[in-house]
């Protein structure tokens, strides 16, 4: 199996008048071609920012720093512009498509720039792409402006645009959050299908464990700018090791005990300026003790397949390992 995307030690900082805050704290992630990595966590923990940073699309005043960025094994860490072979689908298709450009001319323009088509072959390729994303009347669709389309059709258009650049890696930033449940399911199926057909490496960000379970092969749980647990989807969901993951799973309506209310996690994630060296979830964690406040070194090395930085696992030597160098 070949590697699709590898991101090493990504740090994102926001500079302001009084100094800097670290928004994303040296995370490393990767996914093979033909597989999907789900990144899950509450709002404001840096998931979307991680994707945007990989894409080189950080907002004004934000800077990124990473030690390696490889697409299909090739180093593409360039000048901070979108790396070759990577495309992205955004959350809200109502605002993420140019309102004054017809779908067709947008697609044709992207195809001509990215794949070197001439005008005629670009048009044919555009029609093909539109039917590939499940649009039934591509000729009609080509003449539409985004505001004339439904949310589902708009998101399919956005996916077609991303695929038009012939990517090896597809980054999805909550692409189904703005959609109703049945459209959401269809778009997830479409993404999964395209991933298989094109051997894409996919990174899928969502705050919704249910969506992640449907689409992802591996999961990275993010909290307060760090990855706190990672493993195969099955392992993480069935045998969570971090208290945060556990509570996140318990807060899903589907997991509520029959007859009982589901339990939301009390409190809010900390603001980036209040990030500490120790476990950042400790302040909301019912199991927290003095050990949690010691500086963390990173995910444990117990099992490469399923790692966590929670210090509360009596059956693993993670605590000793973690703090041996701290």
């Amino acid at each position, binding site marked *: 199996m070949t590697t699709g995307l590898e991101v090493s030690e990504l740090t994102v900082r926001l500079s302001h008048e009084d100094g800097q805050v670290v928004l994303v704290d040296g995370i490393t992630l990767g996914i093979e071609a033909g597989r999907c990595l789900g990144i899950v966590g509450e709002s404001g923990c840096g998931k979307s920012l991680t994707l945007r940073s990989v894409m080189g699309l950080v907002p*004004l005043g934000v800077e990124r720093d990473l030690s390696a960025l490889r697409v299909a094994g090739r180093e593409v860490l360039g000048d901070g512009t*979108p790396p070759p072979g990577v495309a992205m689908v955004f959350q809200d298709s109502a*605002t993420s*498509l*140019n309102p*004054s450009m017809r779908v067709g001319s947008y697609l044709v*323009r992207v195809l001509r720039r990215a794949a070197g088509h001439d005008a005629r072959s670009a048009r044919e390729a555009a029609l093909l792409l539109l039917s590939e994303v499940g649009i039934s009347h591509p000729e009609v669709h080509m003449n539409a402006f985004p*505001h*004339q389309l439904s949310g589902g059709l708009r998101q399919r258009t956005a996916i077609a645009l991303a695929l038009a650049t012939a990517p090896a890696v597809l980054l999805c930033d909550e692409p189904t959050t703005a959609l109703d449940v049945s459209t959401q399911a269809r778009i997830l199926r479409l993404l999964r299908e395209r991933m298989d057909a094109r051997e894409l490496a996919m990174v899928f960000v969502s705050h919704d464990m249910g969506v992640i379970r449907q689409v992802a092969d591996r999961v990275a749980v993010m909290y307060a700018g760090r990855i706190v647990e990672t493993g195969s989807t099955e392992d993480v969901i069935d045998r969570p090791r971090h208290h945060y993951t556990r509570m996140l799973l318990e807060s899903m309506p589907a997991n509520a005990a029959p007859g009982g209310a589901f339990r939301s996690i009390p409190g809010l994630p900390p603001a980036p300026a209040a990030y500490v060296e120790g476990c950042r979830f400790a302040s909301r964690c019912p199991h927290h003790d003095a050990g949690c406040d010691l500086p963390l070194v990173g995910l444990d090395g117990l099992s490469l397949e399923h790692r966590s930085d929670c210090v509360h696992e009596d059956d693993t030597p993670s605590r000793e390992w973690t703090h041996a160098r701290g």
Partner: protein
Amino acid sequence: MSGRAQLALRRLAQVLPVLLLLLLTVFALRAILPGDPARSIAGPRATEAQVEEVRDRLGFDEPLPVAFASFLEDVTQGQLGVSNRTHQPVAELIVQRAPVTLSIAIGAVATTFLIGIPLGWYLALRRGRADADAASAVLIAVVNVPAFWLGLMLSILVGLRWGVLPVGGLEPGVTGWIRSMILPCLTVGLVAAPWVARSVATSIGGILASDFVTTARSLRFSGWSLFLHHLLRNALPPTVTLLALQAGSLLFGAVVVEQVFALPGLGSALLEAAASRDFAVVQGLTLVLGAAIILVNAAGDVAVAVLDPRTRWD
């Protein structure tokens, strides 16, 4: 196509009540004339017979609706009365003086946007940096400079001190015409450009931060093609709206500077007539200038609707 035509028609239909109100207001002006209105209209040196003639022609003895009807009839036939000073028909005066006002208005619009739009882009693209902040502070101050005073100061500096441009009256010939227009247009342009720059900066700033520009960047649009297809295209409708909104006050700006630079246009005619209580001229010019402003605003609205794809389907 028919959608657009419908839209244009609908907007023009909205103009009709406004035009009617303008006609009513201009007609009603005579009702607030102090003293004997017929005498005021006939002018201070009119004979008793001339006053009677005016009273009869304008229907002062008739009921108001009848008088308004004959006023409407006169207006539609282009009969706007006669100046009580020069005895020139007002319609003739307007035809004679319109070219100057038109040149200043067009020149002022061009100047305003030639200064305002690039400045707005500059402010938006360099937002948050010291030079752009300083520039916007200066702009806020410039907005509050009265046009007549700026015209006066410019005429002293450029016209009289340096002696490069005419500061009063029209020079003969085409070049002379253009030279005479430079300072008036610059005056209006300098005062109006900060408004334009500020709103252009706001709309460009919004577009730069928008999701669709981020998407375009992720699709490898950059530089010129990003600018042309994603920024400029979406910045156009708000800019044209602005042009339409500013057109009225720019036309009024033209009125003001004509008088400062002693140019024979509609505005100076209005102000001269106002100062000398030449009622028919005031009435005729108010009607023509007012209608022009109303129509320009409506035309701007239609242009925006045509430019912005989102309005076509609503």
